[in-house]
């Protein structure tokens, strides 16, 4: 057999090995998280190596402890879920509101400084968020915004707007300009054109974008830690979970139940819209 035939056969097998390995490596931690959260802690400590136990031994007491309000002896994650949802939804809506006109301007309009805008955006990524954290901590303390969900929302907007504009711009540049010219001939103003012509066409990209911003806001940890840690009522789920691990009498299975509660909404959302996200995030990347 020649080299090509040998290699084709080897890689044909290797490919399936790699695929199986990938699925295993990526899914196993999540499966482990879920299975551990359902087992009583005593049983886990006796038998740490066992992965699967029968449904008969499953317990939901861990979830009950995590979700019960703090006043009734639980961890109050329901409230944290509400906080996270509020911040993430607000950040998503406002980011889109800011970035859609911005992306339109960058992709379609010629204005002074258009080429320099990228440098501004680069600043967001070049400087570590820990560097922004110090002055923002000071600034928000003075404004009385620290410890408020509104303050956190503003930070998330600033963190996501540049990528959001970049993603949308790539998509907008694929929409033919002639459509807009036709709309202009019909007497649409620029804003009307955006609302009635561009937005419906860009809906997939806008959706993908919304998902991306929501994900970033939901998962964020550092700023939540710095701004909100003082008042338990304001905690987001990520922060609540991180603080939970510092507690002494909190068992690892409860911690895993909290992790599941934190992860589940994002995973459900992701699987519901996976196609949108993967296509929207990399639109334009294939142009090299």
């Amino acid at each position, binding site marked *: 057999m020649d*080299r*090509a035939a040998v*290699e*084709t056969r080897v890689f044909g097998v290797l*490919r399936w090995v*790699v695929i199986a390995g*990938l699925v295993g490596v990526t899914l196993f*931690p999540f499966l*482990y*998280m879920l299975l551990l959260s359902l087992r009583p802690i005593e049983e886990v*400590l006796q038998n*740490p*190596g066992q992965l699967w136990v029968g449904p008969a031994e499953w317990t939901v007491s861990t979830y009950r402890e995590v979700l019960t309000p703090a006043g009734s002896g639980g961890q109050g994650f329901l409230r944290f879920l509400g906080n996270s949802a509020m911040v993430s939804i607000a950040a998503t809506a406002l980011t889109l*509101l800011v*970035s859609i*006109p911005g992306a339109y*301007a*960058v992709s379609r*309009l010629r204005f002074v400084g*258009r*080429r320099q805008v990228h440098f*501004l955006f680069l*600043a967001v*990524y*070049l400087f*570590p*968020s*820990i*560097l*922004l954290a*110090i*002055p*923002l901590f000071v*600034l928000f303390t003075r404004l009385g915004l620290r410890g408020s969900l509104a303050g956190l929302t*503003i*930070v998330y*907007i*600033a963190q996501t*707007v540049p990528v959001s504009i970049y993603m949308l711009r790539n998509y907008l540049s694929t929409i033919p*300009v002639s459509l807009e010219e036709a709309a202009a*001939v019909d*007497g*649409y103003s*620029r*804003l009307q054109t955006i609302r009635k012509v561009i937005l419906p066409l860009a809906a997939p990209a806008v959706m993908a974008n919304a998902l991306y911003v929501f994900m970033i806001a*939901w*998962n964020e*940890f550092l700023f939540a830690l710095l701004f909100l840690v003082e008042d338990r009522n304001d905690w987001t*789920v*990520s922060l609540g*979970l991180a603080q939970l691990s510092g507690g002494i009498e909190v068992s*690892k299975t409860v*911690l895993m139940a909290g*992790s599941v509660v*934190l*992860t589940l909404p994002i*995973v459900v959302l992701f699987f519901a819209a*996976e196609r949108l996200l993967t296509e929207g995030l990399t639109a334009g990347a*294939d142009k*090299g």
Partner: protein
Amino acid sequence: MVATQPPSTASPAAEAPRGKRPLTRRQQENRAGLAYLSPTLVVVLVVVVLPILWTVMLAFQRIRLINLRRAGFFGEYTLANLKLVLSSPGFWSSLWTTLAYTIGATFFSILFGLVAALALRGAFRGRTLVRASVLLPYVAPVVAVTFVWEIMLSPQFGIANNWGTRFLGWDRPIAFLSQREYDASLFGWHFDVPLALLTVIAFEAWRYFPFAFLFLLARLQAVPRDLEEAALVDGAAPTQIFRHILLPQLGPVIALLTVLRFIMTFNKFDDVYLLTGGGAGTEVVSVRVYQFLTARFDIGAASAQALVLAFGLVILLVVYLRFMAPRVEGEED
């Protein structure tokens, strides 16, 4: 272009009209562009650019949390913070740790992403599902996944150590996240492995390979099929096709990914903080900044430290883009 309409509703009307002459199309467009972008500019300026400038200022003043109220533009400027940071024990080692962590994580996340993209390139039943599950580490919340890793690797009740001692014949559990050096021996050679650092790098590669995978897969699918088919007809082996057809096409994307991953990992805080708290030889600079800030309340020193981090990154990037990058494209507009 869209220019036949009357002045758009969004253009700022505040500016005084210039005589009687109406605005040219170009001026209108200019105004509309700036107006549409202005919310973005305001947010980015207030929440990103001003804080950065402020950090620069803070870095050159002696400021602690207690005397923060007095801090202003006209404070006493001094180089004391920089001197303190650069000469403090552990600074240089943490810079090296950051560099090792960043290079390792960038390299492995792109490598695994490439392998995954090549494996998942062709169509097969259930590919969409596999592709989605491969992306999970990247979309899942960092706090949740770091906890799972911590518990999996725990020496007391972690599944890794349990299986390792049971099936792989380890003599004792390995503290993956809290052991600085692991005395390994291979073929009679003894050497120290920076265990916790490697574990953190492995975590980072696991969490971010989907990011590289996404970009590489998108690019792979855009490679024209006829090139490959022609090579196949000529009897080219898969490795040859990869080396001579796919790799040149992927080059620019890999270069871009290298820059992106490098920047993001270099500045990363939460992963290391949540996994090890910066202990056991994993103290990267961003975790150090956090500790200056929360343990010593020394805002000046923390700012100086953060500034050194950003400066180091800029230098590395300039060097990379200038000398090593295989022509990063996609910068054209």
